[in-house]
């Protein structure tokens, strides 16, 4: 299927544009601006805030994360592997102690549980980072002084230039109408 040629936007100095970044004063302004950007039909955009603003996923229209599915699968696999490990090792090296049978599920419960928890926690952390494509130590936004203040107390929306609906004039107008206090072009 033939696709329309992707437009490449450049700044006056000839650098590729990563996107357009708008700053908002409060979490409430950010929330309502996000609703407007969502309703305008953008797909490649994101909201940046020093803490997760309540209800922002709905305001952005994000689908629910698939992380719990992955974690649940890996946690159960971990518990299963923990059980199999004990079962096989106790038969591979049978030890006559305490009059206990070599294989009985009761004696395997604690370690089965612990190994399941360990794999769950590990998958949660690694899965969260992988879903977020982290670690990524550099990003075009990090060159912007204004953006670095997000980690303190600023609220930012960035619409990326690769979005098919991106248009320097129209996007700027939308963000201004949504109540942005400052708008910047972000270079790649």
């Amino acid at each position, binding site marked *: 299927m033939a696709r329309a040629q992707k437009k490449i936007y450049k700044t006056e100095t000839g650098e590729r544009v990563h996107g357009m970044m708008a700053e908002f004063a*409060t*979490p*409430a302004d950010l*929330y309502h601006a*996000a609703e407007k950007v969502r309703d305008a039909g953008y797909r490649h955009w*994101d*909201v*940046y*805030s*020093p*803490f*997760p*603003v*309540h*209800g*922002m*996923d*709905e*305001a952005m229209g*994000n689908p629910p*994360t698939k*992380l*719990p599915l992955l*974690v649940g699968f890996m946690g159960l696999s971990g518990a299963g592997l923990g059980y199999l*490990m*004990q079962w096989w*090792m*106790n038969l*591979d090296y049978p*030890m006559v*102690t305490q009059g206990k049978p070599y294989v009985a599920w009761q*004696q*395997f419960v*604690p*370690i089965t*549980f*612990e*190994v399941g*928890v360990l794999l*769950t*926690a*590990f998958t*949660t*952390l690694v*899965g*969260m980072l992988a*879903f*977020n494509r*982290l*670690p*990524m*130590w550099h*990003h075009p936004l*990090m060159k912007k*002084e204004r*953006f670095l*203040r*997000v*980690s303190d*107390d600023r609220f930012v929306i960035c619409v990326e230039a690769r979005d098919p609906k991106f248009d320097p004039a129209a996007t700027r107008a939308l963000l201004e109408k949504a109540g942005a206090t400052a708008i910047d072009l972000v270079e790649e």
Partner: protein
Amino acid sequence: MTTIHPDQLAAARLMGMGQPPESARAWDPVTGDGSLVDDPGARAPLVLGGRSFHDVTNIVCGYAENKPGKWWVPAFAVASSLAGVATVMILYLIITGVGTWGLNNQVGWAWDITNFVFWIGIGHAGTLISAILCLLKQKWRTSINRAAEAMTIFAVICAATYPGIHVGRAWFAWMMFPLPNSNAIWPNFRSPLLWDLFAVSTYGLVSLMFWYMGMIPDFATLRDRAALRLMKNPSGGQRVAPFLSLRADQVRAFVYGLLALGWRFSQRHWQNYEKAYLILAGISTPLVLSVHSIVSFDFATSVLPGWHTTIFPPYFVAGAIFGGFAMVMLLMIPARELFANMKDLITLRHLENMSKILLVTGMMVGFAYAMEFFIAWYGGNPYEWWVFINNRANPAKAPYWWAYWTMILCNVVSPQVFWVKACRTNPLVIWLVCLAVTVGMWFERFVIIVTSLHRAYLPGEWGMFYPTPVDILTFVGTIGIFTTLFLLFLRFLPVFAMSEIKNVLPEASPHHGHGSGGGHGRGA
């Protein structure tokens, strides 16, 4: 050092390096610092002094960026010297053998396992605060969870030392793990000691991951602040050392940046992050309950009178929470006095809440002590009854009666002062009770382990336990390791979860300033 000109302070503050000024708070006879509101219609403020998001960033990052007070270096010198003593004692033990401890034929577990259970118990408060209070939506936890989690990790490090060195031939300690070896030997999975190994290792690793994940956004804040200062002033700022051209902010931007993994506060990231946090809280809750239950199995699955009781798992868990909360307050009450503006974040309300938890868990522990006694009598086992009366409680017959009654006095009697509101809102009183509780919880483990072992079924097996200087110095040394790590934490890491504290400020709500608030959004 030299005196600081007031202009220097103002300049530092403008550079984002200084602390915001101390907030002027009026002392109210009813609400104390303003957080002790009893009106059910009014929400007690979680952060005092009308602090903004920016103030929270400045206060918390200020602890990691500025030099701490004059107390820090002497405190660190003492703590790290004690940590050095522990290292020397452990080396001496490994070179010489466990005979350097006061263990004997009868008492084969004494201070080593007492200290192990003591430290691992203290380690339970961190996960309780981060996980269980998170699931119960107790927003006040955000001011104390980071420090409590850090304390958990450090306590688990101290705890994990003991099982590794008490095995005698420490170079064989790897055999506890199911590692393939040329003898084709596997560990005995039917032993509670191996369950314990898996429980403690899992607990240590999961706590570490939980702690680190919580710090990722705060590392990013520290990174961005350093980067901003470098952007403004590439050649200025304080140097790492007078003879190096390297700037402290370059080191900060690099090290905190490395640890932050490129976190950029994106909502699409926050979505996965919040879900991951919830999953970790959900999985840590059964984990924290399982760990001390399994520790109690070390004792409960034996046939020794005094150990062989079914009440042990809940009794140990309640005791762990009790001892852990006491340690959190033992550390945070002095920190609150020593660091600027910390009283705005850890309010009297926080201390009061934690005192109430101490009172409840203290009574649970007291109930368990009473129930052990009752079952010893009601169960009709003469050996069990003997242990409780003649080994522990009766001053005329039991050689360790003083340990038993110290435990009762510290753990059951001392927290009763918290029935009085004036006591549970007075930091000094709370601190003293916490000190008593910490001592009492150490004695609890000593009573359980040593008094049960020192007189078994036959009088010919009876003997006393006397600690050697190596025993004592090893324990004092692990307190040094714990304190050293905690002081480094206070100096270099984000002591408060900034993103979480900002989230509980009233202006963080997307409906703030909208009057009645809207009906949209799940957080409404």
